[in-house]
């Protein structure tokens, strides 16, 4: 197959084309889909942060929801108390979560496997309840994070959710484009080397601890951005916006996406957005019982996670690649 050479320029071009496609799509669909699109963009950022951490640097986090929470709160606080423009609030969200990630990452670099999983899990359980200890964080009720109405020049028909979608999609496009470049750089190669074989990587002159800490920091920064976007789409941050189930959903999304490659991230995000819809449709058929409606989404996500781990452990995208490689192999060796 003739290959278009993947250069920085062609990748940038691809993202610009994707952006235009999303822009056109956003004008075609109704407001509910636009809102789901914004949520989708948030998931894309959050899941890619887990893929970077787990797939590329080989560390596990069961508590990335906590990093989203730090980002969300940082954005809301800087917006409420300093009145900063939205893009600066998002930058602060990234920096705050990255700073927290650097601290946690230093500890994480010394831990591995179940110990790291346990530590991050504890963080996700404990961190949101800090909001109840300091009045400035607004307690259980949380803080409002209102990014405001869309600019008037976009017209009276331009809805609030389309505005959220624009911001979220732009954030996701920039984040993924940047992440992709990072992964192709020296740092990306270093992370992969460490994931592949720590001893070999060390012999090659790579500082394992520093490399892992850096991955944790970058991943947390991305999660912080996702937290800011999440806070925007629901206009509020509160402990209940970052439940433990969010951390698990993100991890599930990453597994569905195929944790070792970024290209499946959209599959993971789509699944997370579609699950409540599917659950809703099923529970309607089952007579709309509250118990079914409440518990079905979690059940579906968990079942999907188990199925993916059993059937396509590396994710559907990786599986597809292998399948194609095998059939190509068969063709050429016949």
């Amino acid at each position, binding site marked *: *197959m*003739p*290959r*278009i050479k*993947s250069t920085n320029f*062609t*990748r940038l071009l*691809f993202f610009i084309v*994707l952006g235009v*496609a999303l822009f*056109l*799509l956003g004008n*075609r*669909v*109704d*407001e*509910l*889909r636009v*809102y789901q699109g914004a949520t989708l963009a948030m998931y894309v950022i959050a899941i890619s942060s887990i893929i970077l951490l787990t797939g590329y640097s080989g560390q596990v986090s069961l508590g990335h929801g906590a990093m989203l929470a730090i980002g969300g709160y940082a954005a809301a606080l800087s917006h409420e108390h300093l009145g900063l423009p939205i893009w600066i609030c998002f930058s602060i969200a990234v920096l705050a979560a990255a700073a927290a990630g650097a601290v946690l990452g230093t500890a994480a670099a010394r831990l591995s496997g179940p110990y790291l999983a346990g530590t991050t899990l504890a963080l996700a359980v404990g961190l949101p309840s800090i909001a*109840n200890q300091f009045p400035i964080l607004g*307690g*259980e*009720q*949380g803080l*409002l994070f*209102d990014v405001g*109405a869309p600019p008037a020049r976009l017209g009276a028909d331009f809805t*609030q959710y389309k505005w959220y979608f624009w911001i979220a999609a732009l954030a996701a496009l920039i984040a993924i484009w940047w992440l*992709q470049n990072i*992964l192709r750089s020296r740092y990306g190669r270093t992370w992969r080397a460490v994931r592949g074989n720590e001893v070999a990587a060390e012999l090659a002159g790579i500082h394992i601890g520093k490399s892992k800490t850096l991955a944790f920091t970058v991943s947390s920064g991305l999660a912080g951005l996702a937290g800011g976007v999440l806070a925007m*789409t*629901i*206009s*509020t941050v*509160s402990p*209940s*916006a970052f439940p433990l189930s969010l951390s698990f959903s993100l991890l599930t999304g990453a597994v569905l996406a195929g944790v070792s*490659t*970024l*290209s499946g991230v959209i599959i993971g995000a789509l699944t997370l957005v579609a699950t*409540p819809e599917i659950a*809703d449709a099923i529970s309607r058929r089952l007579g709309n019982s*509250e*118990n079914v*409606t*409440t518990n079905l989404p979690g059940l579906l996500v968990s079942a999907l996670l188990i199925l993916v781990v059993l059937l396509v452990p590396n994710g559907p995208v990786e599986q597809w690649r292998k399948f194609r490689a095998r059939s190509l192999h068969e063709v050429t060796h016949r």
Partner: protein
Amino acid sequence: MFGLNRGRLLVATAVLATSGLTLSAMPAQALSPHQEVGVSSTEIKLGVTLPMTGTASPGYNKVPSAMKAYFDYVNANGGVGGKKITLVVKDDQYVPTLAVAKTNELILKDKVFALLAPLGTANNKAVAAAVNPGRRGVPVLFVNTGYSGFANKKLFPTTFSLLPSYIVEAKIMAQYLKENFSDKKIGLLYQDDDFGDDALAGFKQAGLNFAVKVPYASGSQGVAGVPATWITKLSAAGAEVVVLFGVSSATGAALATAAGMKFAPKWVLGSVGGDATTIKALGVPAGVLYNATGASFLPATTDTTDEYIKLFQDINTNYNKGAVFDNNVLVGMNTAFVTVQALKAAGPNLTRKSLITAIEKKGATFASAGLTPLMFSATSHVGYAGYWFGTYGPTGDLKPNGGTYTMYTTDSAAGAVVKSTYSRPAMPAKGLPN
């Protein structure tokens, strides 16, 4: 990742194109320009979000079926201008982020005409910020919260409430406490959010000082060991009278834990969590409630001499599978009753705008089971303005002190608490508003 060979480019384009087609194939809105959203020739669709499951749900999860029961009764008697009222119920588990998601579904997916009786201060605030029904012109009829902030018509132009504000309730309760327990040490348990803060503002306005104030985080009543810390604090401060200003589950948890710890002050229950059936269902023996003080703006649920109570009990038997008739059922039916009047008052060309105008213009004349007048006007979107006090009997039923409803009314500002002289007009025939 997006290594751009032609094959992948093709796949990516195909995915984009298919998703685009699928998404755009879903109909945006198949409505004729003159038909209001959520109103058809046969149906008026309303939607409610409230906790149907979860820590805060006990009691409140009975409200939707009660509202539905009254609507079914009206539907069976010709509906509103021949249109049947349907109610879509969504469970938000008392979690603001879920309330936002569920309200989005109601407005964008189910395309309801108006929101009805969404419950919870924090939830309604989150919804107002994120979904912004005001900007969308979607009426929010009769929020089930007494947060005084919702009276701000500029911020919440389409929101109406029936409940008196928590400031009103606290001011009236403060006067009652001063009159009856001026020499006692009074303690307060309140929910640590805008709901509780509103009550604190009312108590402060009335100049009532507490010996001890115990805040609780919403939801923490369900955490093992937490209610015991409240009781320890109240009892350590020597509180002889304790005011409970929380949701039903927190009120029940406080009473049950206190009974277990042999702490028995004089209890004064706020209207939000004061429903005896719910408290009993949470495992509190009726005897614990005995002699506690409660407040309400509707007739007592056991008062069968009241024509509204009699009607609602009949409807409850025939349309609500004979659910236990408690204050939640009563509040639900009364809310539905006022809603039907508002819909009828809006006239044959029902629109969101005409509904809001109708309540502003005619709301003050609406009949209802309430024992104070409704205060709706072009400048006020708040309904009732007062409370009567009663005592819980041995079986847990709230009966008015002295055998008659003595209503006290006031406002959310510096106005005095006064005894009301209002006498409620007769109920429309068969309980069907004209």
